[in-house]
């Protein structure tokens, strides 16, 4: 069995009295691309710096390719890093930048040239060898940074917010390209980002991080459809939150009694925590309740917002006066207008009871 590409177990790091990383653990298989996703301040950049060796680990274990690396200084860790601001050496040409790591490893000149050519072809920058970083666009700089990191044939690749410095249009185009390059290279990769679209677009699996801990790991679909906590439900996609408590009705089902009076039929939650709530994604709520929607909620359409391809209907619930926004497609035949009565429906399978953390 191949040793795991990256293994982090219970790592802890404090800055003064601040606990930046509080026992985070994750595991990436060899060749897998994992995104470390979370809001700013959650500890993801610190985690990346701990793996790279620029911060001292206080507790826990970090292993790359099966071997422990914590005792190694950064220049011995064989990890490729792409920084958020690319950190290309401004006083060296593109070729010299890409060569730098190979020179440190005393790679022979013709081997160096060959590898450099290969990599620049891979990132589609042939012909730019003699340029200086200042003469390159943001997207080009990012590709040079990638080529430079790959040149040392690292055991692990770390990317710090790779697309955040680019404008929106460029970001989309490069996201696809980046994933293609990473898959072609087949290297274990950890991408740190706060942007869920970036995470979903680039990674095989996503690890969600909040307040120094890794809260859930899974594919984009798994995380979206089965969020483990309120944080996950809120962070990826949109989520409506209802506080209350769960009452079991049998082995597989139960009811959720909301504090504000509503009652939902729900599936039994996987685990119960002391404080739980109900998370429902607005797009799973149907304007006209369908036959298999166990939950029916009468409401009145208060306001319609037009967003081009999509409409948002703000509906006031009869039961408690709460207003929820439900998206529908503009070409949806059932098009209620302002003031219309509707019966909202949602299936019990789409109502998730999750811990409130």
């Amino acid at each position, binding site marked *: 069995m191949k040793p795991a590409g990256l293994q982090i177990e219970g790592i802890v790091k404090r800055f003064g009295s601040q606990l930046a990383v509080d026992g985070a653990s994750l595991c990436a298989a060899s060749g897998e691309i994992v995104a470390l996703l979370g809001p700013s301040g959650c500890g993801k950049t610190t985690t990346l710096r701990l793996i790279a060796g620029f911060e001292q680990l206080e507790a826990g274990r970090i292993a790359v390719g099966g071997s422990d690396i914590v005792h*190694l*200084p950064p*220049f*011995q860790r064989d990890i490729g890093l792409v920084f958020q601001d690319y950190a290309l050496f401004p006083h060296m040409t593109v070729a010299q930048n890409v060569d730098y790591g190979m020179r440190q490893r005393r790679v022979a000149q013709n081997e160096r040239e060959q590898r450099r050519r290969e990599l620049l072809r891979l990132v589609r920058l042939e012909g730019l060898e003699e340029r200086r970083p200042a003469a390159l666009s943001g997207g080009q700089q990012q590709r040079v940074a990638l080529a430079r990191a790959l040149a040392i044939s690292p055991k692990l690749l770390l990317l710090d917010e790779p697309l955040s410095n680019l404008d929106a249009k460029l970001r989309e185009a490069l996201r696809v390209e980046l994933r293609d390059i990473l898959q072609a290279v087949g290297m274990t990769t950890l991408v740190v980002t706060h942007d869920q679209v970036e995470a979903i677009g680039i990674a095989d699996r996503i690890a969600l991080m909040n307040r120094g801990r890794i809260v859930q790991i899974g594919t984009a679909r798994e995380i979206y459809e089965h969020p483990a906590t309120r944080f996950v439900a809120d962070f990826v996609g949109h989520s409506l939150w209802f506080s209350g408590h769960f009452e079991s009705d049998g082995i597989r089902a139960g009811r959720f009694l909301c504090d504000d009076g509503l009652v939902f039929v729900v599936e039994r939650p996987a685990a119960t925590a002391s404080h739980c709530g109900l998370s429902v994604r607005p797009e799973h709520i149907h304007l006209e309740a369908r036959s298999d929607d166990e939950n029916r909620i009468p409401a009145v359409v208060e306001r319609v917002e037009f967003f081009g391809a999509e409409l948002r209907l703000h509906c006031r619930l009869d039961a408690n006066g709460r207003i929820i926004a439900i998206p529908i497609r503009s070409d949806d035949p059932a098009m209620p207008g302002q003031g219309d009565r509707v019966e909202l429906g949602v299936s019990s399978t789409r109502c998730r009871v999750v811990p409130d953390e």
Partner: protein
Amino acid sequence: MRWRIAEDYAAAVIFRLLLAAIIFFLIVPIGVAVILSFDDREFIGTFPPTRFSLRWYRAFMQNPSYLDGLVVSLKLALVATMISIVAGAGAAIALTESQWRGRDVVETLFLSPKFVPTVVIGFSILGFASAIHVFDAFTRLVMGHVVITIPFTVRATLASLVGIPRSLGEAAVSLGATPWRAFVDITLPLARTGIIAGGLMAFVLSFDEVAVSIFLTDAFTQTLPIALVAEMRANLNLTVAAISTVLATLAVIIVLILDRAAGLDNVIGRGMYRG
């Protein structure tokens, strides 16, 4: 690549040692002076001293030429600093008020005395003073010391003025304040730290100045540094160690006050990549 880790470690150790050596080099003379200032012996003997007393401090305070020199230096520094602040801060404010033709040239002109060797300043003012029949030593000294201190008051005031948004003065004027009132109520208070910093530097600079003073003094009006050099030429003794210790303590106190008032971090700045 095991040897590379060892080589990296060795380099780090050498770096630390070098750093310690440099700091030692900078501090050791002051330490020696402080210790020697308490030496009880009458002559300059081998280090370290075995008996201690305050005789050299007494010698300093009882020596009339030192005391006279101290008084002259303090008066001179005060007068020169005052003139320098008024002229320099005024010029700095005039330079930032608005853009006008020749502004950059004038700014360079005000900062230029810094690039003129101090002996040249002293020498040239001596000749000029004689030419316009100014023979009073104290006046000549003030002239020289104002010239060398003006670049500092101008630059320090400029630095703090640059941080004041133009919109503040404009707001005051739109509310009915005359330019003079806007200046007094808004600009002056905000430029205060720059003016004080400039004044402090000017004072210290004037107090320690030798090259300018040596051309402009006469037998009756001597600054403390000049008196010191003259006395030490005649007979070198440890009074200078006592004086050095006093001045060193003063320097440390000033820096502590500076840190308390403004924070040394802010005085130096953190550069573009803070933290």
